[in-house]
């Protein structure tokens, strides 16, 4: 039976770069909407973070979301990803076998970024329920090669 691969690779920089930040207080849903919003269960999305000399790449599995239900904020180097989904309800059907959540849920996760980001260059897309971000590092944060001199 095939298993999905990908043993997690822990890099030493992981403690500072891409470290999880404590979640911020969720804003109270306000507004004039007469219909009450369903209560959303909180779900932490599996996320990959990669670094290149130029940018950080953040990829998060958020099945059930698309570009209209996902939001990304970056404030003081804290990156917050969130996305809501309401799973399809099959009226008149009996749930025979359950392995995953049936209530509406919200993906939510925050990361502390070590590098300053050039906000104007941020690219974000959602495709097949996967959020992909490219966060270009600001000029000052780009890795500079350090010449190592021998004896």
């Amino acid at each position, binding site marked *: 039976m095939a298993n999905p691969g990908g043993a997690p690779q822990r890099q030493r920089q992981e403690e500072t770069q891409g470290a999880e930040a404590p979640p911020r207080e969720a804003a109270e849903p306000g507004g004039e909407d007469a219909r009450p919003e369903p209560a959303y269960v909180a779900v932490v999305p599996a996320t990959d973070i990669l670094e290149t000399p130029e940018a950080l790449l953040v990829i998060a599995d958020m099945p059930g979301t698309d570009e209209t239900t996902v939001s990304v904020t970056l404030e003081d180097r804290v990156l917050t990803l969130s996305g809501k989904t309401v799973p399809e309800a099959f009226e008149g059907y009996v749930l025979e076998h359950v392995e995953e959540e049936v209530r509406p*849920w919200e993906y939510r996760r925050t990361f502390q970024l070590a590098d300053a980001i050039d906000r104007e260059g941020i690219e974000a897309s959602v495709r097949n329920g996967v959020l992909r971000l490219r966060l270009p590092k600001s000029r000052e944060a780009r890795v500079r090669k350090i010449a190592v001199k021998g004896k």
Partner: protein
Amino acid sequence: MWVRRQWEGFSEDGDAEAFPPANIWTGQKDLVVRCEVPGIAPEALEISATPDVLTLRGRREERFPDEGEEASFLRRERWNGVFVRALSLPAEIDADRVEARVSRGILTIRASFGERIRPRKIAVRS
């Protein structure tokens, strides 16, 4: 409040066969299977059916062609590779009448019950 960490489904403790997680609903005439397949395009999914079992195969491989050779992982949690899952069904289906669609990374399969196996109400006598 139940917080579910999505990647626990493929830990090393033998749970790998239950990936991807699936829910099954049964109705009067058909059943519905729903499972999460984020990042997998329809052409990377294979579904085959017998009257008792639905077999799902899929593959997902991340590549970063635009970033060259210098991308390194700081955090790696998402699964990568292939999965195969054989789902035993609670009732016999007609393997010729199965429909599958993928939307937003969610696979929904509808399978009509085999003609002779429509659930029948059984009167219980006291």
